[in-house]
């Protein structure tokens, strides 16, 4: 029976159905509601046996997850933004050791300036950490992806990050179908670790590896992700068979059959994009959408097959590779190597800037007419930027950017000009 649940609650309940044995929790917005809910489920005894560890940092959260997973326990944690960066060193360690930890990333911007709102800067910054990265479009998909993620992680012995847009999904109350415990138990077998710290069969984990084998160990992480390209669709198919829902997979196409223009994006913004595409379709524009559900591994072949027939591709992304522009678009262009089509990148929604249908409509119309620059910053306030650039040119001691620009906006009390 469908229920109305906050995204964080839905994910917490889904994670609980996966019977995690160790959950490490550290608060950071907008992830906090997830671990709060899990704390309640463990404390009340609904989720048992499970150790809920209130750690002192995200670095400790991932480190304790590493210890738990290496001891054969199913380990889960959640984080966002600065927290993900704070555990960055441990992320590489978990993947290098091949520990199947599952973690939710409630996507949020990275400071400075400090900002709690949604974009994908956090998880995109860790795209090369060796973690599989799955991006949820809706709350239903977020909860479904967690159930798939544990199976994927454990089959491959590699960690999986489920990325869901902070606030937009985590704090939105939506209708979701919550599976039963029996369904999840049938879908997700108990964790059988490949390596386990056991006094009866002592092993060494985490030895120092020099040039003689380092590349090979690193290659294995890549090999696992290449296997994931096969496994992710298989698990999604199994999931559909078990739960009668489409969730996950590598990519999902929407109205792309005869599309001349295809928009590529990840996460919850796909909903707004699809609505805009529907409107433009009604006006006769041949436009479609490809949503990337698995960003790591990046499904080069599937993306090429989905986009190859188009005349132009517009990648809309909620992250910025400072100094070049797009992150997702660089990957998409690699998938399209050798094909002659126009490629555009639109950076949108950084720090929670709303991505509206009106703006998308104009952006897509410009793209379809090949009027776009290769790199567009959607709804950027050029006047604000130019004012600060001018101030910097005029004075060496022009002061802090963020405070200057907020003053220009009138958002803070006017100080000395």
């Amino acid at each position, binding site marked *: 029976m469908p229920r109305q649940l906050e995204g964080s609650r839905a994910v917490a309940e889904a994670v609980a159905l996966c019977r995690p044995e160790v959950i490490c929790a550290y608060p950071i917005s907008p992830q906090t509601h997830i671990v709060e809910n899990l704390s309640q489920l463990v404390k009340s005894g609904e989720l048992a046996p499970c150790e809920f560890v209130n750690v002192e940092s995200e*670095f400790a959260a991932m*480190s304790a997850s590493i210890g738990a997973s290496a001891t054969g326990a199913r380990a889960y944690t959640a984080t966002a933004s600065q927290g993900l960066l704070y555990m960055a060193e441990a992320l590489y360690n978990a993947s290098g050791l091949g520990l199947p930890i599952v973690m939710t990333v409630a996507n949020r911007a990275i400071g400075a300036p400090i900002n709690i709102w949604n974009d994908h800067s956090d998880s995109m910054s860790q795209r090369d950490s060796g973690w599989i990265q799955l991006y949820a479009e809706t709350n239903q998909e977020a909860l479904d992806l967690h159930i798939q993620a544990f199976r994927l992680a454990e089959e491959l012995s590699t960690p999986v990050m489920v990325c869901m847009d902070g606030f937009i999904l985590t704090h939105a109350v939506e209708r979701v179908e919550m599976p039963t415990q029996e369904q999840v138990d049938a879908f997700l077998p108990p964790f059988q670790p490949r390596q386990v710290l056991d006094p009866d069969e002592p092993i060494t984990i985490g030895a120092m590896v020099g040039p003689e084998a380092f590349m090979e160990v690193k290659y294995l992480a890549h090999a696992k992700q290449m296997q994931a390209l096969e496994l992710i669709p298989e698990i999604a198919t199994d999931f559909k068979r078990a739960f009668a829902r489409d969730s996950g997979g590598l990519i999902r196409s929407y109205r792309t059959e005869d599309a001349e223009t295809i928009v590529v994006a990840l996460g919850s913004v796909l909903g707004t994009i699809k609505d805009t595409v529907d409107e433009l379709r009604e006006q006769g524009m041949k436009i479609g959408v490809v949503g990337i559900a698995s960003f790591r591994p990046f499904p080069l072949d599937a993306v090429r097959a989905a986009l190859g027939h188009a005349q132009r591709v517009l990648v809309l992304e909620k992250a910025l590779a400072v100094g070049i522009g797009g992150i997702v678009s660089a990957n998409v262009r690699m998938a399209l190597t050798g094909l002659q089509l126009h490629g555009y990148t639109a950076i949108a929604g950084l720090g929670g800037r709303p991505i509206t249908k009106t703006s998308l409509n104009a952006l897509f119309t410009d793209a379809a007419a090949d009027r776009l620059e290769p790199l567009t910053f959607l709804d950027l306030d050029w006047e604000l930027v130019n004012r600060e650039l001018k101030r910097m040119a005029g004075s060496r001691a022009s002061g802090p950017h963020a405070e200057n620009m907020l003053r220009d906006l009138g958002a803070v009390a006017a100080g000395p000009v």
Partner: protein
Amino acid sequence: MKAPAIRFYQTGSFAVGNRLLDPEQRSVQADEQRSNSITCGHRACQGCGEALGARYALDAAMRATNGQMIAANATGCLEVFSTPYPESSWRIPWIHSLFANAPSVSTGIAAALRVKGREDVRVVGQGGDGGTVDIGMACLSGMFERNDDVLYICYDNEAYMNTGVQRSGSTPPAARTATTQAVGPEPGNVFGQGKSAPLIAMAHEIPYVATATVAELRDLEAKVQSAMEIRGARYLHVFVPCPLGWGSASKDTIRIARLAKESGIFPVFEARDGEVTDVSKIRRQVPVEDYLRPQKRFAHLFAPEPKTEVIARIQAGAERNIRRFGLV
């Protein structure tokens, strides 16, 4: 548990002659059946105090836990010299993750064991002073504060030895390291810095904190045994001379560790729930000069001319330890 009072000291030293004792009184190390948790073939320097300390402590822990033990190691000398791929000196389940996170990895292992109902298996986290008092302090404090069922052992050789002898928060005043060089008007490490990890541990009011040196095997083994008889967060700080970093002779590792204790430089004590409950008295007090002289890291205190004021300040620090802990 107290180390048994044994009075058969070998002539001219404080070492205990095992051969004169009844078998049940002999140290774990004297037992042919000891676990050899860290076994031969590792690549520690000759006279390495840390290798010795780890061997003493872990073999004692293995005996105390009946072989049911898992260890988590911080990055550092101990990790590097014991596990050059594809070799491993560890005969116990052992994991190395990162420099700063051995206490947290230990927490995770303990949580996994608890959830699996395997509380008979105990967890030891370990690292050097850099991984413990500096970069690992946040994780260590968190583990203490939650009172996780982990014994954490710090092998303190008072600098970052693995990277080439740089100053740590455990480096003593006046000591020469690669980043506190013996040059300028005040050569070596400055006075008034550094921290005592055992006192910080005690401030968490965890059930057990102890210090020990590699010079007193029985005391060290007894403290490990005591620690393993308790549940919750426990901390053992072991003083381990480093011939390479200290510029001391390999054969002097035990002697220097003993002089550290006998001079008052390194107080050896036991604390429960935040209060000191026992101290190892100084048997025959020596001036700090006796401790400083055999170490090249302090050579600038003696040549070209003696820096009597600096030595006096170090002596005053030792006297303070003696007063504070009641060492005589």
